């Protein structure tokens, strides 16, 4: 297989992915300190708050940098994750059978992102916006907004966390643990997947890239 | 205080007038509250004040009065009670009022000189008989009295009115026209509720509530107490204000009993003790009269102030037939002489001998008469005139606390030298670089010495209830600071060095001064307060009987006229046991008094001889049984009468004299002692001829009054004709000062308020600061609470001058002006006085130009920049509490 590989993620995309990943983990952990009283002592002396804020700045900065450096790609991604079609519905219907039983019969061929990945990207995208907006209010506007409103803003932050944390588990599982997703993690580490894997999991995309010779430009963004 | 703090809880009605106890004596309210919340017959609280204060907020009745109208108010209360007494049937009268007390224990029934004429006499309106106006320009008293017609008809053995004694009268005309009670009625007859409202601004209905509530304490067994402070005393007639309270309390039988008394709330932790030690121009330690030039020998002194001045007088017809007049007691006792000789021995010890009159001539002698005033006001005038050239100031701050403060600051510039000892740099020490002063033209040398604070040293202090309590040292003084004791000790030793070798009247009193206070150990190099305390208590200076030289005396009863004892202050003789236990250090927390009325006699020690409630012989009836069974101060133990000594066992407090009760002595054919043992007559003074301006208080106007005519006496102000003041409109004997022309008198101008002084200004304190502020204005926690000087005023006035709450305003008087933050409040209301609408403006006087918290204007916003250099007729205490001012937006 090593001889037949296609590039799936560029170095920049991977850097972006892992930056965000690490940041998100840091944010999640430092945020968790405020969820889990048993971890409360770890939040001592506000260190976790400071780290959380530094990470938050990176989380905001990373997509912005990505957008500035590769605006076309970024726009494409946004457009992509908001574009849903019939295939996506089909995919969602077929997915349980596939992921439990490996039954591929009903799976429609997928583009550079399959529906699941698209869904994850969408959740991630929206929850980051939710995190950033609510977080910014909590950070900068605490003194100027009514106490009651502040508490509701924290709830938005928390809701974002519940949703994104749950989805992160799924993402992590499918990307790294699910028995059938053998090359997913590798692709994000090394950037390449085997032709076989590409055909199998992203038929439409493979067809596109092998037909049009468009290589890097149309790589899938940083998600699985 | 005649009584003490805890005793407030025994009261049935507490009248707080001229005091804001909740703010300035906050812990007193522990006991006020205890009285008000006790389960049975809770006490009522009355607050009389121009301003609704934190005290008023807790009162059952709040009575607003115009500042300086206490006599009109109290006179109205006296009238109410007298009128009530007269209109009741004899039986009801005896139930509602303690007639035995009134007639047997006071001079109510005594007959006054037949030529006495009251202030209503048309030939001298507003004045008693015998007045002469002082025509000299200020400074000086407005006038003075010949008191020859104020005394008893028979000075040595006054007559009494039998009808009054026997409760056998219905109308005033049934009493002798010169009987004290009838004269009292005539003095206050016009002080009707209508008149009270017109003069004081207190609504009639409120006033009548006050009268009713307070008069109820007249019943035997009931007690009402008066708590007063500087709101009473700081007037040109401050002493007469207090006289008014005394009369009221005596009419109601409230002196000497638990829960009663007239209680002066001392503003300083040891102002009681410093007064007992007589750091005052007119007295020597133990309230012994200062010597004047007419008293050239000890014998002349003793004869004049003791033998003649304190000779026992026995009224005729009373149940008691013996007056102790303790100051003299008898030719064999000569207490006055004992006390003075023991003082002289303590001061000049072995150098004071019978042959040299016990160094009597070492005592400085003032000029007799009224040609010099040695009090605070007079002293500063002497400083301003260059008579006084050097000044030592120990923990006082007259540049903030003195009247016409800017004038007094300016006077300090005349000094050659000034020594100030304090904890912090005070305005007084810093006068030479205050705003407006030019150090380059001020030649005064100034020494500023660092003193130890209260817990950096040890010694005793006496609280308002006369409890001398020892306080201990918690740590060494800061830096190189020393206790005042160490400083005065070192200074006197230095002076002795300087005078060493000299002789003569100048050097002898110093060289021969007994000064030996160092002890082993901690006090090897400075005075040991324990040793000083022993000298104050007193000891034998030679072997007498079984007593050896150096043995401690038992108490002042042991003191002798022959120089065999010394005692620095007879009142404090008794603070030690003969084996040397300092009772000021006693800390027995158990209250062993009768019925636990809260005397706590085992906690510290109080003068005289640990008597916690003075005049307590008035708390029992003729048989020695307490009027009040629930709160007995003392009680005669049945059968304990000792015929040989005519004494008995008294239970409870230390009885005021150990003699048996009047009826018990009488039954035994022995002299029956009258209860008020310090008075020559043995009875208390409703009639008080000793005061400068009259035997009974008359409602005079303050020196600066918003009125044109005294509404009570009818005497017009005549401002232009009488720039010094008008006798009969003003207090006829008040002291009008003059600090180099700065003491201008402000006048109202009702036609053009912007050009006159139509507001009544007053000064006071806030709870969070203390006196002239030198200590509390350096305490961040307290400055946080009260950061800036304020000027409190009513909404009506604020509206008129366009001032809003929190604005900076300027308060202006004829002396000067200060800036302060306006506190606009409903707690000051506009009053209708006669035909005038009168507003008050109140300023705390704590601030100055030094310390962490300074005033707003460069003069430190000291309230006393506004006050006049005018003083009380008897004491020359300055009139801080009433003056005219106007408010401007700054």
């Amino acid at each position: 297989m090593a001889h037949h590989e296609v590039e799936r993620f560029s170095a920049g995309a991977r850097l972006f992915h892992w930056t965000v990943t690490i940041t998100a983990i840091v944010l999640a952990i430092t945020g968790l300190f405020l969820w889990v009283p048993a971890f409360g002592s770890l939040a001592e002396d506000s260190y976790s708050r400071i780290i959380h804020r530094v990470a938050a700045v990176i989380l905001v900065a990373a997509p912005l940098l990505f957008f500035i450096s590769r605006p076309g790609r970024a726009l494409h991604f946004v457009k992509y994750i908001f574009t849903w079609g019939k295939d996506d519905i089909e995919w969602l219907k077929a997915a349980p059978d596939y992921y439990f039983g490996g039954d591929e019969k009903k799976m429609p061929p997928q583009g550079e992102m399959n529906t699941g990945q698209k869904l994850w990207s969408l959740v991630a995208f929206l929850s980051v916006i939710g995190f950033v907006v609510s977080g910014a209010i909590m950070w900068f506007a605490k003194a100027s907004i009514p106490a009651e409103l502040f508490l509701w803003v924290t709830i938005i932050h928390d809701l974002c966390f519940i949703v994104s944390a749950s989805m992160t588990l799924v993402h992590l599982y499918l990307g790294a643990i699910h028995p059938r997703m053998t090359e997913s993690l590798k692709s994000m580490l090394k950037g390449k997947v085997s032709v076989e894997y590409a055909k199998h999991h992203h038929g439409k995309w493979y067809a596109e890239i092998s037909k049009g010779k468009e290589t890097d430009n149309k790589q899938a963004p940083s998600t699985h | 205080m005649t009584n003490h703090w805890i005793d407030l809880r025994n009261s049935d009605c507490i009248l707080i007038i001229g005091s804001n106890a909740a703010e300035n004596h906050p812990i007193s309210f522990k006991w006020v509250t205890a009285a008000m919340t006790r389960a049975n017959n809770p006490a009522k609280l009355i607050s009389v004040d121009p301003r609704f204060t934190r005290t008023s907020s807790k009162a059952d009745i709040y009575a607003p009065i115009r500042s300086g109208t206490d006599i009109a108010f109290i006179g109205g209360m006296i009238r109410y009670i007298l009128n009530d007494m007269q209109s009741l049937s004899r039986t009801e009268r005896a139930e509602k009022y303690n007639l035995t007390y009134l007639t047997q224990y006071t001079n109510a029934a005594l007959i006054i000189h037949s030529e006495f004429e009251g202030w209503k006499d048309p030939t001298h309106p507003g004045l008693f008989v015998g007045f002469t106006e002082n025509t000299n320009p200020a400074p000086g008293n407005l006038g003075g009295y010949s008191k020859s017609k104020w005394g008893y008809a028979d000075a040595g053995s006054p007559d009494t009115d039998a009808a009054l004694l026997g409760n056998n009268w219905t109308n005033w005309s049934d009493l002798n026209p010169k009987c004290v009670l009838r004269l009292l009625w005539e003095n206050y007859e016009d002080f009707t509720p209508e008149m009270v409202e017109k003069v004081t601004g207190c609504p009639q209905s409120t006033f009548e509530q006050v009268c009713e509530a307070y008069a109820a304490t007249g019943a035997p067994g009931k007690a009402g107490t008066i708590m007063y402070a500087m709101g009473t005393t700081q007037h040109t007639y401050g002493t007469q204000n207090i006289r008014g309270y005394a009369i009221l309390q005596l009419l109601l039988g409230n002196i000497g009993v638990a829960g009663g008394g007239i209680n002066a709330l001392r503003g300083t932790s040891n102002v009681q003790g410093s007064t007992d030690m007589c750091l005052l121009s007119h007295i020597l330690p133990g309230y012994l009269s200062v010597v004047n030039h007419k008293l050239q020998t000890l014998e002349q002194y003793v004869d004049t102030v003791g033998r003649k001045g304190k000779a026992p007088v026995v009224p005729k017809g009373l149940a008691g037939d013996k007056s102790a007049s303790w100051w003299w007691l008898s030719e064999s006792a000569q207490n006055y002489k004992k006390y003075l000789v023991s003082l002289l021995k303590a001061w000049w010890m072995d150098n004071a001998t019978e042959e040299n009159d016990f160094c009597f001539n070492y005592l400085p002698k003032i000029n007799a008469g009224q040609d010099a005033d040695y009090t605070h006001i007079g002293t500063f005038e002497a400083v301003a005139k260059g008579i006084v050239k050097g000044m030592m100031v120990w923990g006082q701050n007259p540049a903030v606390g003195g009247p016409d403060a800017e004038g007094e600051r300016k006077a300090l510039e005349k000094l050659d030298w000034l020594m100030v000892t304090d904890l912090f740099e005070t305005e007084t020490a810093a006068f030479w670089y205050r705003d407006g002063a030019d150090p380059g033209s001020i030649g005064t040398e100034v020494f500023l010495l660092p003193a130890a604070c209260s817990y950096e040293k040890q010694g005793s202090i006496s609280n308002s209830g006369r409890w001398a309590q020892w306080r201990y040292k918690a740590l060494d003084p800061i830096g190189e600071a020393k206790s005042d004791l160490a400083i005065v000790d070192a200074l006197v030793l230095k002076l002795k060095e300087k005078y060493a070798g000299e002789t003569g009247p100048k050097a002898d009193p110093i060289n021969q001064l007994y000064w030996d206070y160092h002890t082993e150990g901690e006090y090897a190099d400075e005075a040991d307060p324990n040793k000083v305390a022993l000298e104050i208590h007193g000891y034998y200076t030679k072997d007498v009987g079984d007593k050896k030289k150096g043995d401690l005396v038992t108490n002042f009863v042991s003191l002798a006229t022959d120089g065999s004892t010394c005692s620095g202050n007879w009142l404090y003789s008794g603070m030690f046991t003969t084996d040397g236990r300092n009772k000021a250090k006693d800390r027995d927390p158990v209250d062993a008094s009768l019925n636990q009325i809260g005397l706590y006699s085992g906690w510290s020690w109080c003068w005289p001889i640990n008597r916690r409630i003075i005049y307590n012989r008035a708390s029992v009836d003729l048989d020695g049984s307490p009027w009040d069974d629930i709160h007995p101060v003392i009680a005669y133990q049945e059968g304990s009468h000792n015929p040989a000594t005519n004494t008995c066992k008294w239970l409870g407090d230390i009885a005021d004299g150990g003699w048996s009760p009047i009826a018990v002595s009488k039954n035994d054919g022995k002299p029956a002692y009258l209860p008020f043992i310090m008075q020559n007559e043995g009875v208390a003074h409703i009639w008080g001829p000793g005061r400068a301006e009259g035997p009974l208080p008359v409602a005079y106007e303050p020196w600066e009054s918003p009125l044109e005519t005294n509404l009570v006496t009818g005497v017009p102000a005549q401002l232009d004709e009488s720039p010094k003041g008008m006798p009969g409109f003003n207090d006829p004997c008040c002291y009008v000062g003059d600090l180099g022309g700065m003491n201008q008198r402000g006048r109202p101008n009702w036609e053009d308020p912007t050009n006159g002084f139509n507001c009544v200004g007053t000064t006071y304190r806030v709870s969070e600061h203390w006196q002239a502020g030198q200590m509390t204005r350096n305490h961040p926690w307290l400055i946080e609470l009260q950061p800036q000087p304020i000027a409190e005023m009513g909404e009506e006035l604020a509206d008129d001058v366009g001032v809003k709450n929190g604005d900076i305003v300027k308060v202006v008087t004829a002396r000067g002006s200060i800036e302060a933050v306006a506190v606009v409040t409903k707690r000051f209301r506009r009053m209708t006085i006669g035909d005038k609408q009168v507003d008050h403006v109140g300023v705390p006087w704590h601030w100055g130009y030094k310390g962490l918290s300074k005033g707003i204007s460069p003069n430190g916003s000291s309230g006393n920049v506004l006050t006049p250099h005018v003083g009380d007729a008897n004491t020359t205490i300055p009139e801080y509490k009433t003056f005219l001012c106007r408010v401007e937006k700054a």
Partner: protein
Amino acid sequence: MELSRRDFLKFSGVATAGGLAAAKMLEAQPVSAESLDLELSKPIGEVPTICCYCGVGCGAIAAADADKVINIEGDPDHPINQGSLCSKGQALAQMRTVNGKDNPNRLTKPLYRAPYSTEWEVIEDWDTALDMIADRIKKTRDETWLDKIDVGGTSYTVNRTDGIAEFGGGELDNEECYLLAKMARALGLVYLEHCARI
């Protein structure tokens, strides 16, 4: 491994419950660091003193190091105040110690201001300071001394000086007041006053 819908539901139920059980563990409150056997954060004090402000004479107890006050509060045994104090009494500690350090405004050395000078100078030792003061007192006293006065043609011995005044004492201890009175009268002072009059 086959999975029925029922099994699935069962399993998810168990899983959710597992999540909640973990939550319960994690939500447990940390053990109180401030339980009932807590030590006092500072000593309350044992040195009895009497408040230096008004005339009520409240008792206070002080705890101090060699050079700073640690705590001053009401003396609970004192029958008058029974442990209570007002704002001023409660601030007594700041007479000496503010925020753990000496109150910076307290005077610590004798100061002298020379005639026409614009500043204070420190006098290094007490002996010098008192020597200077004693010189001033003696000079003024000697210059203004009155052995006798003449009133209406008669001479009276008065042995006094009108040239020196002494103020103060209401804040001092009885023993201090007594010695001040003794010194003042021995010096022949007649202008002797304190705050009782004002």
